[in-house]
């Protein structure tokens, strides 16, 4: 029984770190512009698909990945310039619909460019499973976990110790105040969308050897990323990571011990329970309504 748990944890952490990366993308955009970007899943898909196309065209893997990141960052810029910026000051619900419209639009574009087929990239360092105390893990899983930890710490460092990162956080607290102290809010927003798109693309490239990608692969990832960000407490980068990992582990334990058919139902039921107990997520700050 015990070697199950290790295997469940390993697959849970692998899937969880993907959700965490996507959740982190949600948090960055939410931090900068109070917008929950439902097109985040599409950033992951576009990153993966363009990386595959570049590598099929014969470009070596590393360069293909960098080019894929650039393509997705451009898409992130476009989303901010043409969709979010003109709709300044719109209500929560309106921005949700705008980002949902954007995700459908990007999916339609992907359908035209890449068609309906499934695409995959060869694993970065082979498919030889590694055995650890009864449980096995793929090298690609280690890549996913390793790079996720790297990216997460880079993002935390960026927001904590760089002036640019603080400027973005300032924008989210109060646009007008940020402008008063000379921060170019427009540029900061653009940067945050670019950063989140880059994160999404990297997540996409990391997982495509394991999960393959198609034009509509972004939907489920976007949904799980949103759940991870909410579970951890929207707006809190560490919350997104904890939420993502927890969601991944919950899913694999649920599938392992209770029933694999109800895997997602169990995960969402637990998220609901957490929200009822802590209405603003695990690590979300409970802001006191001021009258």
């Amino acid at each position, binding site marked *: 029984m015990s070697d199950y748990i290790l295997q469940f944890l390993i697959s849970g952490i692998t*899937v969880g770190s993907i959700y965490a990366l996507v959740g982190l993308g949600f948090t960055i955009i939410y931090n900068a512009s109070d917008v929950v970007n439902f097109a985040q899943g599409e950033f992951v898909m576009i990153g993966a698909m363009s990386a595959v196309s570049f590598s099929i065209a014969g470009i070596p893997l590393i360069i293909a990945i960098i080019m894929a990141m650039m393509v997705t960052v451009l898409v992130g810029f476009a989303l901010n310039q043409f969709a979010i910026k003109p709709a300044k000051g719109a209500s929560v619900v309106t921005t949700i619909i705008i980002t949902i419209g954007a995700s459908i639009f990007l999916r339609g574009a992907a359908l035209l460019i890449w068609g309906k087929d499934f695409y995959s990239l060869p694993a970065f360092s082979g498919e030889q499973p590694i055995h650890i105390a009864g449980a096995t893990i793929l090298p690609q899983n280690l890549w996913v976990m390793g790079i996720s930890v790297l990216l997460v710490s880079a993002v935390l460092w960026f927001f904590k110790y760089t002036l640019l990162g603080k400027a973005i956080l300032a924008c989210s607290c109060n646009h007008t105040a940020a402008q008063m102290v000379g921060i170019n809010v427009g540029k900061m927003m653009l940067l945050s969308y670019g950063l989140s798109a880059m994160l999404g693309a990297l997540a996409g490239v990391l997982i495509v050897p394991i*999960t*393959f990608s198609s034009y*509509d692969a972004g939907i489920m990832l976007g949904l799980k990323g949103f759940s991870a960000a909410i579970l951890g407490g929207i707006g809190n980068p560490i919350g997104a990571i904890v939420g993502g990992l927890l969601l991944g582990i919950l899913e694999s334990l649920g599938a392992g011990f209770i029933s*694999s058919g109800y895997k997602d139902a169990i995960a969402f039921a637990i998220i609901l329970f957490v929200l009822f107990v802590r209405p603003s997520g695990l690590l979300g700050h409970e802001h006191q309504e001021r009258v």
Partner: protein
Amino acid sequence: MRSKIATLLSITSLCCSIMISSQVYAGDTIKIGSFLAVTGGASFLGDPELKTLQMYIDKLNKEGGVLGKKIELVHYDTGGNPKKAVNFIKRLVKKDRVDVIIGGSTSGTTLAVAPLVKKFKIPMISLAGSIKIVEPTQKWLFKVPHTDRMAAAKVFADMQKRGFTKVALISGSGGFDKSGRTQSLALASKYNIQIVADESYGNKDTDMTAQLTKIRASDAQAILNFGFGKAPAIVTKNIKQLGIKLPIYQSHGVASKKYIELSGDAANGVRLPAAAIVVANELADNDIQKKVTMAYKTQYEAKYDQVSSFGAHAYDALMITLKAIKQAKGVDKKALRTAIERTQNYVGAGGIFNMSADDHMGLKEDSFKLLEIVDGRWQIVN
């Protein structure tokens, strides 16, 4: 108050303008209606099916059509959504006035429109797998693809031959997967096989190691995975990742090169039942299906990418329909239905069809070939 009345008029004018839009009446052509899941989760099925229909109808029209009339294909994409399928059937019958319908890539969409087909008394040939479409037999409803029961029977027969008595079952959440699972559970005892594990996964899931770990712990001697799309490829790779050495059986849902490509070398050794089309060039020259399958394969791969058994279903449905039209010398729905029902030893890509009043599919188990993947290529197991 006045602003509201003005805008209410804009609602009604919107509706009227749509009503008046084209009520076109086609000239003297044979109209074949079709509704396939070209996008969405089941695009794996609908896309090759549509391409096949369009390709062959263009070819036929260039050769003068049938009975001197041009054939017109009227197609709508359901994306696998039954609600849309019902809408489109009514549109095909009421608005486009089609003579016969080829369609329903998925069992869900086919079963959704079955009552309407009966009400409109129009013959329809479905391309979906579930046995519920032809059992109990419905007067106006036919089906070309092999049933999931036949696939399960072929797999269990081979398992019995190899002496396996304990088998693990893992299936997806789609209609095809679930009905395949039900048929396997029902049929296993006939081949004195015991299902020792019954796991399932979501078709969009990215990792099935949890379920497979439970299977590894059971005393299963082989694994049967009923599914289609990308999930079975992930299952195959996970099995290799977990170092599970049990022989793997798949369903005819993944009988395509894409499955081999995605699973990589984890696919080697996997056995699955499939129609002859998949192994067209490996068929022996005296195999009566050789000519038909090779013709279709070369035609399809000249224009599009690799051939898939789902495209072959559309090909068979179209050919059966055209043969019936010639036999019924016209498109009277009743005569057309009887002609289709009397299709006898038609050699198609999917197998040899012998339909009758109480068998609206006409394929026997032998039309399935058992294949094994040997270093990235199909090999027929006899």
